[in-house]
């Protein structure tokens, strides 16, 4: 089952981390080459008819007004159409979604999607400068953690979600990340490490937060009926959805869910004709430990308020009933905004094709029904979300 008008035939990722020795351009080139060179039956770049670049933070690498040419102009594809997408935390997944729309429109048979972000060419203080930007009163002090945190506090208050349960997410994902050669963080941590880490923004300690990371990822999308030209094991786009919410945090009706996620998931499940019970795995947005807990609920993995128990009971670990963030998630890989969504597609591509054992056999999840879910949520006011469903089922 699924929409399946577009297929993913190849992906490329670079090792995420503090890449002080790599420029934005080098990251993009490496991800692109990793992608096209890994395509099973070979790939001619001339087949690419359009491209999308997901990138948010252009001022940090010197481009006053970055355009899509920052991608095509650097990889020998100057000439083809290329659109830059900037759309908060779902930037990469939204670039991917636009690539799907481009192919499904019938205008382009083969497109390239690259997500990339230089987060480390900026100081941490500068990243926090969102706290001074936007509305000078209503948004005063709003950083990434301080926009997620009030919802975490309310969730803990209403449902009894505990700091320990938040820590369990971080411990699970850091254990998975230790098995992922592309991950920024490569070391496991303990519950005590998380609980004792310095407070960043109540209730998030340092280890409840994803690191500040550079990264890039690439994907080739083709018309589904052309997929076999490139691989015998294409991964189909079974469905996708995107939801938005009100812009200011005080305008949220509920502080125990992200409506944008709920809306995106509803569209994606309907488009694919499946439900959460059909998933073999999910790569979800865990910028902070608690975010993954609310994701479980918003994406329908468990009932409202049960997210804390879901991780506590081990359902989301590798080998559990629905492994979540087998890649290590954002907590391990980091969150280079443009790259994150595309990198999640890479992980799902490898997992669904059962190719993870080439990297580390312990990280491969069991593929039974052939569906994987990708999810991002964020942007100012945590007001947009993308959900993508990938499938090996034709």
């Amino acid at each position, binding site marked *: 089952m699924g929409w399946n008008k577009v297929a993913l035939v190849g992906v490329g990722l670079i090792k995420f981390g503090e890449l002080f020795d790599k420029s934005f351009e080098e990251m993009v080139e490496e991800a692109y080459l990793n992608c096209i060179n890994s395509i099973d039956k070979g790939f001619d770049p001339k087949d690419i008819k359009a491209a999308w670049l997901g990138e948010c933070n252009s001022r940090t690498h010197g481009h006053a007004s970055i355009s899509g040419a920052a991608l095509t102009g650097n990889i020998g594809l100057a000439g083809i159409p290329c659109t830059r997408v900037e759309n908060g935390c779902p930037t990469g997944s939204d670039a991917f979604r636009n690539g799907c729309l481009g192919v499904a429109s019938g205008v382009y048979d083969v497109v390239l999607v690259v997500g990339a972000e230089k987060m480390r060419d900026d100081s941490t203080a500068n990243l926090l400068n969102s706290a001074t930007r936007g509305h*000078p*009163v209503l948004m*005063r002090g709003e950083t990434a*953690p301080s926009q997620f945190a009030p*919802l975490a506090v309310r969730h803990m208050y209403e449902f009894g979600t505990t700091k320990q349960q938040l820590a369990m997410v971080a411990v699970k994902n850091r254990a998975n990340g230790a098995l992922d050669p592309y991950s920024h963080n490569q070391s496991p941590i303990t519950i005590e490490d998380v609980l004792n880490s310095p407070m960043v*923004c109540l209730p998030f300690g340092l280890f409840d937060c994803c690191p500040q990371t550079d990264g890039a990822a690439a994907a080739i999308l083709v018309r589904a009926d052309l997929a076999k030209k490139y691989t015998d094991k294409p991964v189909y786009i079974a469905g996708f959805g995107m939801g938005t919410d009100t812009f200011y945090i005080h305008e949220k009706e509920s502080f125990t869910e992200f409506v944008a996620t709920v809306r995106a998931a509803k569209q994606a499940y309907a488009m694919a004709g499946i439900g959460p019970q059909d998933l073999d795995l999910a790569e979800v947005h865990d910028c902070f430990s608690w975010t993954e807990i609310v994701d479980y609920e918003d994406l329908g993995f468990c009932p409202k308020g049960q997210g804390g128990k879901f991780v506590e009971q081990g359902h989301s670990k590798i080998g559990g009933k629905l492994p979540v963030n087998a890649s290590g998630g954002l907590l391990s890989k980091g969150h280079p905004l443009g790259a994150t969504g595309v990198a999640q597609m890479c992980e799902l591509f490898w997992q669904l094709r059962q190719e993870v054992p080439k990297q580390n056999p312990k990280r491969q999840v069991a593929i039974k029904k052939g569906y994987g879910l990708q999810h991002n949520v964020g942007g100012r006011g945590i007001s947009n979300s993308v959900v993508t469903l990938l499938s090996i089922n034709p």
Partner: protein
Amino acid sequence: MGAGILGYGVYIPKFRIKREDIGKAWGGRGKGENSVTNYNEDVITMAVEASQNAVKNSGITPADLGAIYLGTASAPQIEQSSIGTIALTLGCKTTIDLADFGASPRASVAALKACLDAIDAGRIKYGLVIGSDCRLGEPGTEQESNMGAAAVAFVLGKGDVVVQIEKIHSYATAFRDVWRADGQQYIHIFEPRFNREYGYERHVRTAASDLLKDAGRNITDFKYVVFQQPDDRLHRTVAKSIKVTSEQMDPANIFPVIGDCGSASMFLGLAAVLDHAQAGDRILAVSYGSGASDALSLMVSQQIEQKRPREHNYQSYLTSKEYIDYTTFLRHVGTLKKPGKPADLGIPAMTPLLSSYRQAPELLQLLGGKCQSCGYVNFPPSEHRICIRCGHTKFDRVALARRGKIHTYTIAYVLPPGFDETPLPMIIADLEDGVRHRAVGTEMKPEQIKIGLDVEFVFRIISTEDGVNVYGNAFRLARK
């Protein structure tokens, strides 16, 4: 009968430093304490809260005010009026007469006299006079140990006055003592003994004696005597020479607990007295600043019983206090700053001046746009011309409730340059009218903050760019 005081209101910041703690830092001593502004307070924010209290206590509305005159020696800007922001925040009419009186801690009394004249001349019906100051002395000096912060506001008019103003006598010379030049943060003095004898003592004594002579009264005719109090000693010397008893002046003895609050000093002493005064009590009040002194003969009327503030009065502000150490004091007043330049306010170019022009009424007065179709209160209304809940385009402008309960919150421990008050609480509260609002929290400790607690809006500096403050409302824990 001439104009008098219809109502009064005070404001004293929450923080105190013991003079002993300032003394210790410099190898000295000290007794008593000073009030200290928070990071997000200045002459304007203090004046707003005192004025809100005064207007409420007087029984008029802000729209009734024909003038607001502010007296201060520590306005946030050398050039840029402070009073417009105060008037807009209070919700006054734009036909109002506004004026800043400055350059001396006696500026507030100059403002008072001008306002009385405007009323007596029939030019305005009601006026608001404010004394607000948070002057600073240079670190390690006696002035540093003496400076406090406070604001006091009086609503003036005719009719049901709580205080009649019987007579004012002024004495002014070319004497020059305390100064603060353009670009300087701290006040300076030349020679204490010279200032004492030829400045404060001579001027205050002369103004007071001349008033008594002029009015044909004895000092014993006055139940209370209120002096400007730049320290704990000057006014006692004058009191001795004109035979004022401690019974007459002790009720107005604010210096030991507040310090030298400049333009608010004599006003605050008067407010402290009025909280206890009875109808028929006569009060002598004497100001001083920069070579000029005014002596006022005042008579308390029957109205005092009804209009005396029962809450948010001198005593309640005096007791709502928290002690800070010397290092924290230096950070509060801006002597010590966190390193790094704060980022600009970002894209689109919301300079403080532009945004406060576009959005000042709704941000300062907390006005929302109530949808005529679904009833949802959109905030900020200038940005929401289409109801975010239902898409309707017709609204009623409504004032948000001033109090609410915490729905949820967070506390940021890591913030970039430009954030002095860390950890910084961010509060999402459900107001008493059902409207949900978000604002930074102030004067609440992390361990105090809980979901469900009562909070109230308080007018503060929210951010600063290029030395220009953006004012708005923060939440503090609700007070009596």
